[in-house]
């Protein structure tokens, strides 16, 4: 059975994938459908949804097109979620793997280092980092990655600790495999399931974290993001519900889709589950 067929056996994962593809399509099509900058004021402010042709989701406090903002924002939100999660995994997985596999002094040093990051509240650290580096897409991605890797390291460490004394790992050691090979070929593939689940949640958290940063006015001033849209609409939530509702739904759907896809990936990557079903 092909990888995709195994993946598609999980209905939820398929739905998630479709939603995700639609969001990606939105991001790609945005410049074609709305060639103008989403920041441009194009109509009178507070236009409710469906009240005028060309503005299906209405306009915001400054008369900007909400539909255009939503589509342009998809790109930034997805980019920030995926890139910051990848960076966090790149830091957390090797650290956790080394700490869990070798144990002892190495483990102590690496874990104290990890705890140093964990003692500072995530969000506070992210705010400080963005404020120091000046708000831009790069600095936001970096800040989110730096605050979200410790849980990855701890998870991977725990998995490695429980797997490193399995008989098949001992067998690999016996045939003379190097530590690097054992870590990469024997143990890491068996830790993939929890890592994938955690990563799909982290993408979601990253999108939300970016929203929170933009909400506080620490977003990149040059790009439209869903978080910024919600943040800007907070003062008028009672007069113009649609300004925060549509970007909110977009975030919700993205997060949901990512979780479903993560679960499907986990099923498809597990050779045992895939053949028994």
């Amino acid at each position, binding site marked *: 059975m092909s990888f995709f067929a195994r993946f598609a056996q999980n209905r939820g994962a398929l739905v998630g994938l479709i939603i995700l593809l639609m969001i990606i399509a939105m991001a790609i099509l945005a410049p074609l459908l709305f060639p103008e900058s989403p920041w441009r004021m194009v109509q009178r402010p507070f236009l409710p949804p469906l009240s005028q042709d060309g503005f299906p989701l209405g306009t915001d406090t400054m008369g900007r097109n909400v539909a255009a903002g939503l589509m342009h924002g998809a790109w930034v939100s997805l980019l920030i979620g995926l890139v910051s999660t990848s960076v966090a995994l790149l830091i957390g997985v090797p650290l956790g793997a080394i700490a869990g596999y070798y144990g002892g002094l190495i483990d102590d040093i690496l874990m104290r280092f990890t705890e140093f990051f964990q003692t500072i509240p995530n969000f506070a650290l992210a705010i400080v980092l963005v404020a120091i580096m000046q708000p831009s897409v790069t600095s936001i991605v970096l800040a989110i990655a730096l605050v979200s890797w410790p849980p990855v390291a701890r998870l991977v460490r725990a998995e490695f600790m429980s797997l490193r004394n399995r*008989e*098949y790992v*001992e*067998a690999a*050691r016996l*045939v003379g*495999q190097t530590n690097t090979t054992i870590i990469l070929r*024997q143990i890491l593939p068996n830790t993939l399931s929890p890592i994938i689940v955690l990563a799909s949640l982290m993408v979601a958290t990253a999108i939300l974290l970016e929203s929170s940063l933009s909400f506080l006015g620490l977003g990149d001033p040059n790009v439209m993001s869903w978080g910024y849209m919600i943040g800007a609409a907070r003062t008028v939530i009672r007069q113009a519900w649609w300004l925060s509702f549509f970007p909110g739904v977009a975030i919700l759907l993205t997060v949901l889709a990512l979780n479903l896809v993560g679960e499907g990936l986990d099923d498809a990557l597990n050779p*045992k589950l895939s*053949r028994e079903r």
Partner: protein
Amino acid sequence: MSDIATETVLSIRQLSVALPKGADRALAVEDVSYDVKRGEIMCVVGESGSGKSMAANTVMGLLPKGVRPVQGEVIFEGQNLITLTEKQHRALRGLKIGMIFQEPMTALNPLMRVGAQIAEVFEAHGKLTPKQRQARALELLIEVGIPQPEKAISAYPFELSGGQRQRVVIAMALALEPVLLIADEPTTALDVTTQAQILELIRDLQRRRGMAVMFITHDFGVVAEIANRVCVMRHGQIVEIGEASEVLGNPQNEYTQALIAAIPSNAVPPHREANTTTPLLDIKRLNKVFRSRGGWFKPSREVRALDDVSLTLARGETVGIVGGSGSGKSTLGRCVVRLEHPDDGELLLDGVNLSQLKGDALRRERHRVQMIFQDPYASLNPRTRVGMAIAQGPIANGTPKAQALKQAGELLDMVGLGASSVERYPHEFSGGQRQRIGIARALALNPELIVADEAVSALDVSIQAQVLELLEELKQRLSLSLLFITHDLRVAAQICDRIVVMQHGRIVEQGSAEQIFLHPREAYTRSLLEAIPGRSASVAATA
């Protein structure tokens, strides 16, 4: 009470139990009928997957989800148990029917004192006052023969040994004086000497109380030891049923005959010797102490796993290391393959001292000593294809990948699995097949010495015999030297030239297999020999 032996306690009639869709067969148990009578021990024997436990679970109303009886009845005291509601069933469990489980550690609540757990049985059925419950618990502990029962009653399960825990489980099952006792592989998790004691206890209690016992096991040795009547099952069906002496002494069915023939024989092993006397492995005064780090308020603990162990093994020789749990036999094996670092002593393999090698130097020598692991399920990486699992060793030692995979195919062929298995994942194989894969992996590096740590203990008897045969054949063909670690003297007798008996980290006795069996010098060796289940029965049969 006049004719005790004929009163039927439990009667199973044409019982069929269906498995959920997608299982490997439609019915777990098919058209099974048997009786269990007062004052007898009925043994239900079969290999894994034979459905032997399913009938017992139906009686207890403890069938797994999705598994349900579809035909027949189970009559206990005039009631059909299949039609009972969950609530009625619960009232019966413990009160009229007691059950002993396989794994005493998981059958007990680790956070509850032993006395409280026994008292809980009375509480569940609303009997006695709390004070009386404690008193009864103590009486029961005395009855099942726990040493220092006054202390044991306030102990936690982890403070007791495996055999003592199983005694507690038995005490709980007996608490309300059930009419029927169901024992599901109660001695499988115990070592030989403890097993003999528990079997004796069950037999003794059964006689004293006149209970009916339904005893489920896979071990014909145990059957010979304890059964009045035997029911042999295979693929969910009864293949043979009858008096124990008849089924064991004169089996009619082919399958039963094969199973009995597959029991590692108790006959004295033939005299055999290694072809050479050139020493391959020379162990000199090896020591290993395990220390658990103490905390602020607890002292550190020391366990002497190996105490001045010296041993030689000639090229082409098979040496068996035999001992109960905690004897240090596994630690010795793990030191030889250097998964464990010995504290001091020498480990000379053909003149090279392996005991002090480290890092890359050790890694380069590793291919010379390989290991076959105990658990065929845990020793293969679930995400690695079988061919790759075998080829990994040669690849790590510099063989090109394509060539290593080709060799893996040849090795799989040699252990009788067919070269096409290369592309499959471990979970597609049965336990016995996986153990063959483990053997192929150990052979891939052309080792000079193979350490087999309880390599057949986790397998069914007939599979065990096949794997032992394969090992023997490979040994002849490739002139291997083997260090065979086992708790089972019967298995050791089948394959070993020499046997080394260990206890508390020390070598108690060593000699040829023949000598150990016929003229054991040490008391411990004799107790191991006497504990072999079914020994007296078959000795009587051969005499």
